[in-house]
């Protein structure tokens, strides 16, 4: 099938399959799935500026589905999500402007691809190290019947330090079990996530979700739901600004989303059967797979069709 806006020819079945897999990942890990969708689109031959914008558009449709499901499960902290959305939008615009600059210098494909690989390998390595250390600690991460799920991390002290950082205004987030935290800490985390979202596409949940757990100290299940809720708002803005700049092939996003819709339902349901550290450990190989797809595209110059 020809996608006239981005000038690419892709088999729609591949797009639906990628959407389905990304949908399951999104619902399960609470990340938009751009660590797989973006590299897959690049491997299909979509120019990198369209990869970024189109992935953001696809994330909007998918996150609505998953966020609604997580809200029904009580995994969304609305107050935290709304605060983060404001700073994320500013970050998304910053990232979109960087893409425009790279487009003018005609090196958007190479620079974004290299940035993608560094981020994906870094995130995967960090989450693997943290999850492995946590499991080695031998803490009881499983829940017994009738007791709430425990969510432990070997670097939980980092979140505690950030929560002690006293720079007014201080706010409390009872739905995330946070008694007191500086508003600025939340805004900085959200802004950085927004820059990655606007620059690399998708919701940048691979940055924001770990940051919410390790820096803000939000329980993993709440971080998953709140991240999805926040992504709906920020990715909507990202879609709009990138589409106006001519970086969105909405038809690719629509086709990919048909697969993602059902995958997201399945993924969100799966979170009920796994616990914090297990979810994080299962996340490890996925960014590496995305990095592998980008390296394949860069090194061979061939595109999967």
């Amino acid at each position, binding site marked *: 099938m020809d996608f006239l806006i981005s000038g690419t020819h892709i088999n729609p079945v591949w797009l639906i399959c990628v959407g389905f897999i990304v949908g399951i990942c999104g619902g399960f890990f609470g990340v938009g799935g751009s660590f797989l969708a973006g590299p897959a689109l690049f491997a299909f031959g979509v120019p990198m500026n369209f990869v970024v914008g189109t992935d953001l558009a696809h994330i909007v449709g998918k996150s609505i589905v998953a966020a609604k499901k997580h809200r029904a499960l009580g995994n969304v902290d609305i107050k935290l999500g709304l605060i983060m959305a404001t700073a994320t939008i500013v970050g998304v615009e910053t990232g979109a402007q960087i893409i425009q600059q790279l487009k003018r210098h005609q090196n958007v494909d190479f620079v974004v691809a290299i940035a993608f690989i560094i981020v994906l390998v870094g995130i995967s390595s960090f989450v693997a190290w943290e999850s492995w250390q946590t499991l080695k600690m031998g803490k009881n991460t499983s829940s017994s019947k009738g007791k709430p799920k425990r969510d432990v991390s070997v670097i939980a002290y980092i979140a505690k330090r950030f929560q002690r950082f006293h720079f007014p205004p201080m706010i409390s987030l009872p739905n995330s079990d946070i008694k007191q935290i500086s508003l600025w800490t939340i805004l900085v985390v959200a802004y950085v996530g927004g820059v990655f979202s606007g620059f690399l596409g998708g919701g940048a949940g691979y940055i924001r979700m770990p940051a919410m757990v390790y820096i803000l100290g939000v329980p993993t299940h709440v971080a998953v739901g709140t991240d999805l809720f926040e992504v709906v708002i920020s990715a909507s803005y990202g879609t709009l600004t990138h*589409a106006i700049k001519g970086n969105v092939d909405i038809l690719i996003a629509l086709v990919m989303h048909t697969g993602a819709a059902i995958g997201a339902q399945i993924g969100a349901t799966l979170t009920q059967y796994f616990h914090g550290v297990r979810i994080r450990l299962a996340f490890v190989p996925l960014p590496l797979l995305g990095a592998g797809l980008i390296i394949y595209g860069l090194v061979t110059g061939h595109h999967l069709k």
Partner: protein
Amino acid sequence: MSRSKKAASLQSFLVELVVYAIFVFAYFFLVLHFLGGWIKHVFDQNKTLYGFMALALILVQGVALETLTTVLLRMIRSRER
């Protein structure tokens, strides 16, 4: 979960997947296939309009497909009972 319950759960999931695939197949050929030319025309003429239209399309599809999958799940579960 007992083995029979697991099998029933897997069966209903597969039924849902097949029904959903039929809907998506029909939607793809009836709607998306013919949308391409018109969307390209809007993209070339007015980027701002295209931006809002793109956002509206993905939001509407998101809500519509979520409703469809929820209805399908409900129908299959009620049939199981």
